[in-house]
């Protein structure tokens, strides 16, 4: 694949696309945000004016080309404008997770040497003021929400609207500069820098060029026929590459509308009100929604409940096939139609999926039952596989070829090869430029020919040509007897049970596997309520014998299913315990994107792992926890360790 130096449609930067949209889609809504209970909207023409005013204000403030501008807040139009305004003045936007602790922010702002930050509110301002002494290069901060900040020293602190106002006032002073800076942007200039959350070690700054972002946006938009009429709800963290591609890359490429929720808590209501046509969520969101639907159906009247189960049974049988356009009998079709009127339609509306044309899930494996549930309702939910370094897209499932256990075929213009050890490599126009200030990591990830190591192990399925992912390549280990140890594979099977939130498998280099389990408080709590089991805390519920019984049942069922695959049969769980606290990013046990940090967990709960191996039946432990405001505390508990039945390994069937 030759890298084309010709830009897609002649637009070589996001600001250039903005100007195109402001002419072509001048009166079409570009952004909406619910505020004060009403959806406020901005057309593309409005958006261009807002961004221009901000960009002029930023030049006026002293932002120079090549400066890094941190953007810290939840999804709001102002922050999307900030990123495009930063690009317009030749600066590089660096979105940062807004729930990062101060020391995480200190690392990122220090590493990229950000001189400016555009932040949401007092909470973020306070965090940066706390670390400002250690950031020598830092100059100015711009905030959106004034609340609580009135009395702060405003020498280096500015209101967003004031910066825009100053920009408008100094229009004639700076417009020439702004135009010159915009004209300098080309396909190779940096579009954005995103820090990967990193399951190990410090975050790395992934530099993405305009080429990476625009080519990926173009290819993926064409792949799914996205047009200017799409509506999306932007609610996933702005620091995550997916949000950048959907809410900026694809939105600016196609001209569709980005809707921002009123607050994090109102997301479900806002989703219902907007009814997006293009939707993206990690499996967790789909799981939570399904759990809440099921819980509410349990509480519904008898008639409704029976109707729901009756038609869902039917949908399970034919819904997926109807969606894929496969032949289905006329009677079944008719019954599905009726079900759609009575159950599926209203349910989809309630969930906010009434208009979804294309839905994606990625980031983690999704439970096949959850996936099928949404598909059978007639929601075109698909899977994709990607990462920050690829500007999201590596593989995706085309319409009509959707399955729960694969991640689809290579995306347009993406080449994939699989190494001998099973690791997946790719090369594409979306391949990142470099890790900022980290040539060693860049070199070890991306070779001279542009092939990037994903760190994931997988294989192409015979026949369909779809990619299947097994696990993180580095997590795949060997048991003492030489069998393969693939923790994620087993953990995912466990997590597909609604009452299990998280599982961590241990056993690399050992003779057998053991597991930690986190229960899902909402699912188990509801179950407890219905069974008249009183509990005062997460800890108490997690230690309840009946809960342990039901988890044991799940573990044994998983063992059976794992045993069916001779290659992985060694990963069966011999002993397990239910943890007394939820694994939490604040305690460093998970990343901000909620992936378990295996090594840290193993180290922190070493006493528990040891106890699982030495055969003791209970253990008392004391664990340090961190509260939201950074204070430390500790909880102690006595945990019961249980043995799980292990299934005999199935002999390999000759004919597959």
């Amino acid at each position, binding site marked *: 694949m030759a890298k084309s130096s010709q830009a897609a449609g002649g637009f070589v930067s996001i600001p250039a696309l903005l100007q195109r949209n402001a002419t072509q889609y001048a009166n079409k809504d570009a952004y909406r945000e619910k505020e*004060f209970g009403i959806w406020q909207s901005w057309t593309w023409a409005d958006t261009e004016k807002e961004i221009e005013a901000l960009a002029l204000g930023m030049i006026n403030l002293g932002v120079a080309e090549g400066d890094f501008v941190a953007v810290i807040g939840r999804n709001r139009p102002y922050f999307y404008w900030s990123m495009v305004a930063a690009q317009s003045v030749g600066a590089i936007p660096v979105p940062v997770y807004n729930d990062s602790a101060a020391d995480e922010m200190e690392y990122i702002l220090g590493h990229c040497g950000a001189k400016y930050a555009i932040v949401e509110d007092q909470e973020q301002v306070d965090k940066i003021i706390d670390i400002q002494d250690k950031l020598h290069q830092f100059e100015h901060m711009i905030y959106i929400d004034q609340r609580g900040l*009135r009395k702060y020293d405003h020498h280096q602190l500015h209101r967003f609207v004031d910066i825009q106002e100053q920009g408008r006032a100094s229009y004639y002073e700076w417009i020439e500069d702004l135009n010159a800076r915009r004209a300098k942007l080309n396909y190779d200039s940096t579009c954005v820098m995103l820090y990967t959350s990193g399951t190990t070690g410090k975050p790395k700054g992934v530099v993405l060029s305009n080429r990476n972002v625009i080519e990926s946006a173009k290819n993926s938009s064409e792949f799914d026929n996205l047009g200017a009429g799409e509506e999306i709800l932007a609610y996933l963290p702005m620091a995550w590459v997916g949000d950048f591609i959907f809410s900026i890359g694809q939105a600016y490429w196609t001209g569709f509308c980005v809707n921002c929720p009123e*607050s994090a808590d*109102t997301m479900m209501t806002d989703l219902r009100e907007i009814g997006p046509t293009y939707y993206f969520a990690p499996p967790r969101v789909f799981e939570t929604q399904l759990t809440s639907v099921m819980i509410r159906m349990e509480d519904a009247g008898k008639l409704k409940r029976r109707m729901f189960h009756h038609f869902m049974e039917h949908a399970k049988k034919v819904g997926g096939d109807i969606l894929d356009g496969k032949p289905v009998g006329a009677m079944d079709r008719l019954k599905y139609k009726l079900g759609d009127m009575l159950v599926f339609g209203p349910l989809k509306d309630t969930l906010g999926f009434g208009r979804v044309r294309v839905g994606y899930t990625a980031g983690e494996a999704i439970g096949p039952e959850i996936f099928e549930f949404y598909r059978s309702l007639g929601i075109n939910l698909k899977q994709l596989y990607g990462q920050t370094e690829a500007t999201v897209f590596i593989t995706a499932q085309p319409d009509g070829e959707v399955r729960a256990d694969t991640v689809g075929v290579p995306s347009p213009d993406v080449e994939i090869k699989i190494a001998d050890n099973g690791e997946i490599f790719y090369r594409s126009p979306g391949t990142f430029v470099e890790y900022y200030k980290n040539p060693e990591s860049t070199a070890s990830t991306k070779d001279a020919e542009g092939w990037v190591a994903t760190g994931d192990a997988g294989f192409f399925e015979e026949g369909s040509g779809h990619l299947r992912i097994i696990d993180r390549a580095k997590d795949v280990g060997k048991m003492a007897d030489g069998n393969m140890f693939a923790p994620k594979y087993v953990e995912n099977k466990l997590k597909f049970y609604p009452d299990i939130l998280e599982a961590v498998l241990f056993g690399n280099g050992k003779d057998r596997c053991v597991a930690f389990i986190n229960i899902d408080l909402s699912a188990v709590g509801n179950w407890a309520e219905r069974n008249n089991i009183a509990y005062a805390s997460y800890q108490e519920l997690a230690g309840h014998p009946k809960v342990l019984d039901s988890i044991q049942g799940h573990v044994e069922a998983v063992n059976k299913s794992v045993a069916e695959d001779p290659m992985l049969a060694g990963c069966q769980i011999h002993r397990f315990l239910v943890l007394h606290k939820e694994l939490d990013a604040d305690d460093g046990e998970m990343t901000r994107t909620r992936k378990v940090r295996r090594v840290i967990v193993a180290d922190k709960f070493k006493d528990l792992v040891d106890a699982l191996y030495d055969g003791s039946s209970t253990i008392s432990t004391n664990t340090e926890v961190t509260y*939201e405001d950074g204070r430390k505390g500790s909880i102690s508990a006595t945990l019961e360790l249980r043995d799980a039945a292990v299934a005999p390994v199935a002999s390999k069937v000759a004919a597959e």
Partner: protein
Amino acid sequence: MNDMSQDSYVTEDGRTIGPTVMEMKNITLRFGGVKAITDISFDIREGEIRAIIGPNGAGKSSMLNVISGFYVPQEGEVWYKGKKRPPMKPYEVAQQGIARTFQNIALFEGMSVLDNVMTGRLRQMQSGLFAQAIWKGKAEREEVANREQVEKIIDFLEIQAIRKTPVGRLPYGLKKRVELARALAAEPSILLLDEPMAGMNVEEKEDMSRFILDMNDEFGTTIALIEHDMGVVMDLSDRVVVMDYGKKIGDGTPSEVRNNQAVIDAYLGVAHD
């Protein structure tokens, strides 16, 4: 009026405290033969957070009820905005711009959060019953304007997600917040909070403290509050009145009060040796 302070000053954290807006002069309140409040005087200045503390049964709530007009004291005078206040019904006091929350939440359980907060705007609704029923012209404009104000408060107190939820389904901590929203919706010049943090956990207390401070900062609302949690009171308030057995035993800044021997004795008991 001679002892009323007319000058403003600026606090350490940069807030401006204005002149006296309300003054209690020698208030005595009796229920039959029981004296609930004996000869108490203190003032509330514009823009300040004024706390009334004291052990159980000290007469704090009675004092708040005198301010809100629910009790009429047998002796003493209440001065408000430079005028002596004649005995009034609570609704008349509310019309003067004094809003309150209650120790035991007093919301309409069956109504949504939004409707509950809207009731706080009653004072600002001028159109009559008939106009409201027809719902045209003035009534409609008024509702829109009031709704806008209410939405600002909902945003301020971060209760957007429960806007349409019936109050009866909310947990205790959120109900307290809704009650605060309703009081705030009245755009009061003095806001009386009767134990705003009672029964809350640490996190809810922190949230509530932040709201009280932000309210004072953002809207310049004068706040008089009763609270049991000493830590909270000392952190929040500009000046504190300490009551014990219906009498005032201390008055001053938190640090003055903290070092006042009578206050220490009342709270910690006196050693008899």
